[in-house]
């Protein structure tokens, strides 16, 4: 694992543009352009809101909304609103307008359904897609919702269980589609999240027609104990292009040693799904993923750092950050959030000294995302 100090020296060796100096010296006022939509446990309870650079460089809660249970996925929507999804098995969606002017909007899961923690907006902004579970059968589905009212229009099966993150793919064959990660881990809602019968795990990646929900393809790894959960495109998928999809993994092996050494990254090129192993132990858990220039960043909280890979899955290094999980793409790299501290990662290495987070004791959830207006990748 690379320490922050040592990582600074790697920049020159990698021959990449060192932008960290400017960022590090940036006064808080200038840095305030960067705002992160995040979910956290602030000690008094669960909140969602905006973290922004403050005087002295710390990231502080510029705005927050209390939520009743832990939040997970977050979306910045085109109309300026923000959406938070309850962690699985969840029963609420919250949409609010950080700029104010409109009351927050709550949507409750329909009876017999639970939210699985992630949502996606269609490019035209009219439709929201949510991953959900049928509590009777355990089957996963995509809830197709009106983006204005959040009411459900349709349900599409995901041909698996434990569906988690989903992304839009404009580039796939046959027109726009949804790519959905079926985590494949059996659970019982009565126990909240307790896993059962791991021998029956069946994780898969599916492509669903964006208009009809029809299944266009399904892919599986050979190792069924690797749950496919979080997704990121390497560049924006556009018609005629086939960008790579990065998938963060959660290992569920019975053998602790096998679990510790399990890979945390898989890649998908539209036809093949393969593993990107690392030469170090990442404790078998990638909690979030984003694309960075020339590669991938995977938050590995159990390994205490952010794992960096090349675009083709080749190993770069691990950057130390206690409880690192949330990663948010920017133009030059990404923001990584850990326990009480955050880092800006540049082209393959740490760019700045860690930023503390306020209030002290804040515990970020798995994800955060840069708000529009700040430099970011597509």
């Amino acid at each position, binding site marked *: 694992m690379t320490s922050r100090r040592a990582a600074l020296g790697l920049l020159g060796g990698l021959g990449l543009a060192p932008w960290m100096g400017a960022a590090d010296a940036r006064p808080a006022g200038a840095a305030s352009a960067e705002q992160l939509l995040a979910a956290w*446990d602030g000690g008094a*309870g669960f909140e969602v809101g905006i973290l922004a650079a403050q005087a002295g460089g710390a990231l502080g809660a510029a705005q927050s909304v209390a939520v*009743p*249970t*832990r939040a*997970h996925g977050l979306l910045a929507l085109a109309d300026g609103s923000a959406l938070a999804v309850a*962690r*699985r098995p969840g*029963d609420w969606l919250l949409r609010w307008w950080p700029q104010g002017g409109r009351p927050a*909007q*709550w949507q*409750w899961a329909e*009876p*017999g359904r639970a939210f699985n*923690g992630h949502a996606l907006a269609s490019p035209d902004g009219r439709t929201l897609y949510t991953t959900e579970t049928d*509590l*009777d059968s355990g089957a996963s589905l995509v809830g197709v919702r009106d983006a204005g009212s959040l009411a459900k229009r349709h349900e599409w099966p995901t041909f698996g269980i434990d569906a*988690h993150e989903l992304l839009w793919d404009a580039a796939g064959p046959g027109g726009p589609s949804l790519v959905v990660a079926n985590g494949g881990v059996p659970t*019982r*809602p*009565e*126990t*909240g*999240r*307790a*896993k059962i019968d791991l021998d029956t795990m069946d994780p898969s990646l599916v492509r669903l027609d964006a208009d009809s929900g029809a299944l266009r393809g399904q892919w599986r790894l050979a190792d069924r104990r690797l749950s496919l*959960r979080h997704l990121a495109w390497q560049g924006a998928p556009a018609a005629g292009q086939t960008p790579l999809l990065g998938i963060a993994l*959660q290992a569920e092996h019975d053998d602790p040693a096998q679990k510790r050494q399990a890979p945390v990254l898989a890649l998908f090129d539209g036809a093949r799904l393969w593993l990107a192993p690392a030469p170090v132990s990442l404790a078998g*858990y990638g*909690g979030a993923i984003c694309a960075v220039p020339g590669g991938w960043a995977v938050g590995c909280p159990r390994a205490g750092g952010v794992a960096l890979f090349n675009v083709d899955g080749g190993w770069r290094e691990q950057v130390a950050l206690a409880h690192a999980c949330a990663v948010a793409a920017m133009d030059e790299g990404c923001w990584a959030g850990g326990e009480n501290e955050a880092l800006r990662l540049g082209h393959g290495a740490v760019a700045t000294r860690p930023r503390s987070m306020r209030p002290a004791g804040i*515990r970020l*959830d*798995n994800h955060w995302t840069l708000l529009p207006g700040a430099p970011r990748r597509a």
Partner: protein
Amino acid sequence: MKFCPSAAVKSLRYAAWALALGLAATAPAQAQKTDWGQVAVPNYSPASVLQGLHQHWTLPRADDFARQAQALPVAVTALCEAPAPAGQALAAARGQWQQTAHAWERLSAVAIGPLVARRSQRQIDFSPTRPALIEKAIASGPGGAAAMERIGTPAKGLPALEWLLWTRPAAPGSAACRYAGEVALDVEHEALALQREFQALAGADWPAAAPEQLAAGVGELVNQWVGGLERLRWAQMEKPLRAAKSKGSAPDWPRAASGQTAASWAAQWEALRTLGLAPGAQVPLPGQGLVPLETYLRGKGAPEAADALTGAGRQADLRLQKITRNPAPAAPAVLEAGRALASLKRVAEGEVAPALDVGMGFSDADGD
């Protein structure tokens, strides 16, 4: 056997604080006077904790639920066969439903073992009930257990029976009343199955169980205790309030039709409190009684975690007693109770579980 004196100073501090609040009347308030430094608490093994749990907690409550559930079809049949007006028979059936529901709530507040494996909560306590599906089921006229298996859970169980006894009282001799009888038999069937399975757990040779089985059992107890807190706080208290606010309607409280909302919360809290907090200085010998989490912690030499649990538990107890004494609790008091339960949950996740070396499935640590 190892005995562990507890942190007397902290216990005395809590005792003084609690007495100042005038909490001495409640059962856990007895614990406030306990000088744990003077009490020898056994270092309970996981086997003795699970043995005590199943012999002295789950089985007696499963027996009680089975007893009440067996009386339920009898009461509903009496209603269906009563001459009009059936006011007395209806009152008797309603009373038996209440007894059965509260026995069920005491058993299921912490859903462990067969309650989870059988998905009993979903089978007989699905909420919200679906009137349209109940009407459809009545029209289909199911007779017998096999026919009832084809009826979806939203149209049967205790909430459906509540609807048939209060919201749309089934008239004697009607198809609705016959369906109510089938629903009552279905509840009885589940209660007897649970009783059998809890009998097996109570009779198990826990000291001979494999270490991983024991660890899993203790882990399930702690996790599901926290799950029970969260279900009471969120699903039953705060969510109805929040949903009502966003919809501009009255809160859709559980057991509202029967007027048993407060009694239901009280039954669940009683179970959670008994499993969590020590009832004063009474300390069971290993395997001879229920070992609450607080007592387990003190025996393991974790007085700080035990004190934190007691402190947060008493706060929750104070607020739950306040709202459960009131048949129509006001929203601020419900939210206050919800906040106290949330604080208790945080203590359980942050201090109790680590002290017992239990991983929390509800916590941050299990990935997503």
